[in-house]
């Protein structure tokens, strides 16, 4: 009797063939849902504006605007998965941004000379290190003294914003180093058409290689394999999406005036079809961050431990995991990511203002939650959170594009957040 019950759970019950086909692809349905919602929003704005919204420049701009929040959201995912929270991310961005601007305008020019070719790298590394130290400091209080993360980072939210003010008495510091400015995107801050195709092809090769590697491993151990047609569908679909996105990025041409200026500076002629901007640097950074963080979350021990702690803290402890150090590491990591995000934000606005990063904590948390991260702990994905951030940015960008600004954007963002979590809650309850 028990046998019958168990096999009924294990074996997929007979279903319509279309659903079985879906299952063979082993696509993460939650992630797929976010992608559908994102495409729906973008097409919706396209419809509202009679297609004017659907230009490469708009799609690129809204992605670039999502980068700062998305980068931090990858770290926040691990924090929320382990049943903690970090409210201080916006204020850490503020402190680091101000420090970065100060280094590039005053400290480094005095130390190593104005427009030194390494200014951008030193500033970036110092900024990320500063973020990591701040995150580690808060993490130590949370993990080793046991003060709830909500309280510690609420303190951080207030304190670090105060420190930001203290650094410069509230004065805006600008401009940033010219090389550093590339991190902010724009035509100059993009990698160009040819390089974009190269990146696209590398990603395609990686997708195919990963599918092949997984298949080989599973065959080696005699586990069930995906049907061949499913593997091929996934590979073709993956490559088509990647190359399609590259095509969109390359359809964005430098504005004519800027292109002429570039031609004069470099002495190179403008290509006949116009100068292709390609993928912006901040998007490249986001891709790398997403890749590395996904790797850490799913392939490294540390990631497994974060999820185990979120699922059952006591079990993790009894399993012999050093839970305190694991928690502290999640906070070091998010601090580091705040540093990187601060660099990109400062580069985009070409300087640091007192309110740099203000309110980020809420957008970052919202991005994670829309992306399927559960506040109960133990559930969440890095790509989901990144997509959540892009979804929020699309909404904000689209609303301002159709002329709805400020307060209405916040109202919509709030409604979307609650709706997303509401749908998820209902789905989860139905799934059991």
């Amino acid at each position, binding site marked *: 009797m*028990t*046998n019958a*019950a*168990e*096999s009924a*759970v*294990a074996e997929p019950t007979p279903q319509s063939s279309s659903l079985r086909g879906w299952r063979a692809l082993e696509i993460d349905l939650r992630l797929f849902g976010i992608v559908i919602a994102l495409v729906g929003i973008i097409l919706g704005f396209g419809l509202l504006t009679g297609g004017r919204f659907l230009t490469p420049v708009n799609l690129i701009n809204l992605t670039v605007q999502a980068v700062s929040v998305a980068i931090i959201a990858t770290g926040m995912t691990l924090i929320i998965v382990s049943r903690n929270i970090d409210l201080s991310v916006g204020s850490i961005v503020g402190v680091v941004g101000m420090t970065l601007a100060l280094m590039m305008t005053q400290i480094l020019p005095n130390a190593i000379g104005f427009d030194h070719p390494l200014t951008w790298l030193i500033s970036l590394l110092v900024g990320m290190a500063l973020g990591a130290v701040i995150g580690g400091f808060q993490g130590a209080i949370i993990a080793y003294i046991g003060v709830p993360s909500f309280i510690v980072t609420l303190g951080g939210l207030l304190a670090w914003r105060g420190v930001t003010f203290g650094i410069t008495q509230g004065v805006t510091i600008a401009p940033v180093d010219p090389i550093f400015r590339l991190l902010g995107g724009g035509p100059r801050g993009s990698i160009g058409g040819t390089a974009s195709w190269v990146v696209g092809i590398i990603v395609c090769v990686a997708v195919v290689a990963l599918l092949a590697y997984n298949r080989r*491993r*599973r065959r*080696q*151990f005699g*586990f069930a394999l995906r049907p061949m047609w499913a593997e091929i569908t996934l590979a073709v679909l993956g490559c088509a999406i990647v190359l399609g996105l590259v095509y969109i990025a390359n359809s964005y041409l430098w504005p004519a005036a800027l292109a002429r200026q570039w031609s004069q500076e470099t002495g190179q002629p403008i290509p006949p079809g116009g100068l292709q901007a390609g993928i912006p640097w901040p998007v490249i950074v986001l891709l790398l961050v997403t890749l590395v963080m996904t*790797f850490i979350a799913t*392939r*490294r*021990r540390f990631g*497994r*431990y974060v*999820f*185990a702690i*979120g*699922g*059952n803290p*006591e*079990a*993790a*402890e*009894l*399993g*012999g*995991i050093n839970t305190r150090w694991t928690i502290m590491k999640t906070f070091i990591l998010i601090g580091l990511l705040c540093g990187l995000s601060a660099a990109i934000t400062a580069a985009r606005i070409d300087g640091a203002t007192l309110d740099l990063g203000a309110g980020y904590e809420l957008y970052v948390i919202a991005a994670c939650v829309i992306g399927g991260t559960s506040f109960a702990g*133990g*559930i969440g994905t890095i790509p989901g959170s990144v997509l959540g951030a892009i979804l929020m940015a699309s909404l904000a960008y689209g609303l301002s594009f159709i002329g709805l600004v400020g307060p209405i954007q916040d109202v919509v963002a709030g409604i979307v957040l609650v709706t997303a979590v509401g749908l998820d809650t209902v789905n989860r309850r139905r799934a*059991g």
Partner: protein
Amino acid sequence: MVVAERVPLVEMRGINVAFGGIHAVRDVSIDLFEGEVVGIVGGNGAGKSTLMRALSGAHKPDSGEILINGQVQSISSPRDAKGLNIETIYQTLALADNIDAPANLFLGRELMTRWGTMDDSAMEDQTRKVMKRINPNFTNFTSPVKSLSGGQRQAIAIARAIHFNAKILIMDEPTAALGPAETAQVRDQIRHLKTEGVGIFLISHDIHDVFDLSDRISVMYHGRIVDTVDKNSVTPDEIVSMIILGKRPDQATATELEQLELHT
């Protein structure tokens, strides 16, 4: 006596554990030999689990000594205990519900590839092999364990304890969540481990389980050990009276035993 003095696998001496003002375990001494099953019985809150948590590294005792193979050892974390081949099946199972069976089985001891990444395929492979021995009906290796039945979850907890060559096994209510068929499987497993020389502390509420499997039985009452007795020298009724009265049968008064009679 001609029999040479054997060194016990585990010897706990004068163990005290207090939570705030409450003495959960008072001055308890207990030992365990190779290939032996010692049953630990007692009412709720008698201190059975707390005593065993001291051995498994989940809670450091306030005082007392723990000797493993005759050597004093300091066990201050579950990791220390595992280093001494002490494995524990907790009453709560201690599974992370959100990850799959192989991830739980290898939690804290993941198999790695040479590139420093987790070798999930190898872990799944070994999990399939060990589960085939423990529960052949177990087929779900990729869903979060939340979706599994109580018996399947218990099987993972048992597999985790025996997969890493335990010399000393602590089983806290290992059959509490199981049906009759699965309980029988666990009993067979215990007998099998015994023949391999594993020493087992078995905590159970089920007097029949304890009588069936144990060589010796320790009865705990309000944090103390009332007595440790050879299974063959007592009857289940005598054990029950020790659990309820907290006294050895010869110490109990006739009236107390009579009242017990009325109650049962």
